[in-house]
């Protein structure tokens, strides 16, 4: 989901497994195996994103113009998405408009469900940095997506 294309994500996942296989000797068990694997995945995605950014980057405005209706349909309803793959692709496009640091923490926390401790180990930062980054990332997401959500009140 860090990459804005499902097939590209699958290619990247393959690469991550190959890299992990090659680097197995460097895994000393200091962190959980999953954390080690996530770290490889995050670094690999960052590299790919940097390569992509050199080529082109779709602006948020262009994305809104193209996908605005779909985004509105997705966020104005709380029903399960009818086309999971399309939904995933749309969400990854939305995420790709976030700065890299925000995108990776949103993906790891909201989609992969990593704990704060795991996030700190994967992203190689402190717990305070995790909290601060997650706060700002969520704020940024809310700011971008609030226009697609019909105002409604909720009971606390």
């Amino acid at each position, binding site marked *: 989901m860090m990459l804005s294309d499902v097939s590209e994500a699958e290619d990247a996942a393959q690469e991550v497994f190959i890299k992990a296989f090659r680097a197995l000797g460097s895994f000393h068990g200091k962190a959980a195996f999953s954390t080690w694997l996530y770290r490889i995945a995050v670094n690999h995605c960052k590299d790919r994103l940097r390569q992509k950014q050199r080529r082109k980057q779709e602006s948020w405005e262009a994305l809104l113009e193209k996908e605005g209706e779909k985004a509105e349909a997705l966020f104005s309803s709380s029903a399960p998405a009818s086309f*999971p793959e399309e939904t995933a692709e749309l969400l990854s496009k939305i995420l790709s408009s976030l700065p890299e640091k925000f995108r990776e923490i949103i993906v790891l926390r909201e989609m992969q469900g990593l704990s704060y401790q795991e996030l700190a180990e994967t992203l190689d930062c402190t717990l305070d940095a995790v909290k601060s980054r997650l706060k700002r990332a969520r704020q940024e997401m809310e700011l971008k997506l609030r226009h697609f959500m019909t105002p409604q009140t909720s009971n606390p």
Partner: protein
Amino acid sequence: MEHQSVREKLLLYKDAENIDPQDEIFRHLEGCEECRAFQSRLEKIQNRLSSVSLKPSPAFVYKVMDRLEKEHAAKPAKASSRPALKWLFPTLGYAFAIVLMFEVILHQEIPVTTESVLLSDIPQEAQWSFVAQSPDTENLLGQ
């Protein structure tokens, strides 16, 4: 409590392990529609994101395994992590053979025959110095 500080708290509130129902944030939310809407939007975004479960294509595992097998096959036979071991057994073998050879040479008595002594140009004293004990030869020479 100000809206801004409530929203700051709400951004991480869902992650908190122990939520205190008496927290003043709830009192604020009861009376503030804007902050409730903010909370609702956050929850919607989080729910949407967490509901995505991407499954790899059925061929994914085969593709990865195929690549791993190819990579494994293409990799040249890895040299032993302790290259000394590679030479240890032949070296020990040679060393043993050399020690054995020296043992045999040092303990071997040089056979001295009458013919070899009589026909040799080397002075006899020099020849006898090689042999520790040669009473029979001396007797022969005496005759």
